[in-house]
């Protein structure tokens, strides 16, 4: 069962294929050019894995929070791919994908934040466990400095781990609701 994960909520375009482990990854900082790059990146991803879209069993897309434009591109592309191949589509927080990059066995807990513009950030506390990553408490909008002083490792501006999203696709479809930032 091969799963696709994709995230366009941040300046990164992140894609991954997963089947009992990472089969292929694509992650580049594209600024706001997700739309222009996404099909080329998908081609590169599948070429790297030696697979075709017809091998897919499910898709997960990062639903933000993120920029209006990035979210639209990510969710619209994911919907097109999933519907085109009659696959279950799942939406997961893009912060989970960031947490997957930041956290691991040696560093199981931390604050993951993204720029909310005009001085603020959106942030959540995340915990890594071998069976998955969970968010502790609510997503908050606050000041960078305050969040950095919580005594937890603080992560901002890191690329999302699309392979974690792909892994989530095994859980099946859910309602995909973009969180426009």
């Amino acid at each position, binding site marked *: 069962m091969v799963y696709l994960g994709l995230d366009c909520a941040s300046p990164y375009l992140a894609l991954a294929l997963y089947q009992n482990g990472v089969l292929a990854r694509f992650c580049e900082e594209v600024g*706001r050019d997700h739309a222009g790059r996404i099909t080329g990146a998908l081609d590169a991803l599948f070429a790297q894995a030696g697979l075709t879209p017809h091998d897919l069993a499910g898709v997960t897309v990062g639903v933000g929070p993120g*920029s*209006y*434009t990035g979210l639209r591109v990510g969710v619209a592309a994911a919907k097109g791919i999933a519907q085109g191949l009659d696959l279950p589509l799942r939406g997961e927080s893009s912060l989970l994908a960031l947490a997957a990059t930041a956290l691991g066995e040696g560093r199981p807990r931390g604050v993951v934040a993204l720029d909310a*513009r*005009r001085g603020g950030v959106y942030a959540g506390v995340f915990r890594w466990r071998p069976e998955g990553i969970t968010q502790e408490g609510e997503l908050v909008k606050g000041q960078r400095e305050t969040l950095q002083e919580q005594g937890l490792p603080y992560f901002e501006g890191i690329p999302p781990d699309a392979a974690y999203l792909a892994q989530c696709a095994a859980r099946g479809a859910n309602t995909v609701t973009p969180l426009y930032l």
Partner: protein
Amino acid sequence: MKNVPKTLSSLSDTEQLARTLVQHAPPGTLLVLSGPLGAGKTTLVQALGRALGSAAQISSPTYTLIHEYPTPAGVLVHIDAYRLSAIRSDVAEALFELGLDDYLERARLVAVEWGEALLRAFPEALIVNLSLTGNARRVYVTQGDRTLV
């Protein structure tokens, strides 16, 4: 700002103003256009398009609120917040919901008609105030508490 006429009596005066504004405004600048209907706000945006090297036919964005035009210098965004001001008390918030941040990030210039409500969030915005006396158009350009023209 130098060489800017304080009254716009011809199209070439407006073109001169537009060229100066373009020189003075770094990429991503918010330009608030203030003045009554018929004061020449859209005409100024047309001149801004030409000053940025675009031959695009610029028209008023009343129907869709936003028009954007490619220019050799980057995207020129033209927003008309008049309709928003009629339905929303928080025009600035309405403009943010419209994706103003996204536009400012990627645009060469974002010109907003009836956008005075944005000045609190963007104190560094350039304000072009156009007023109509008889057939002449008086211009004030301010930024923060400085009067540039």
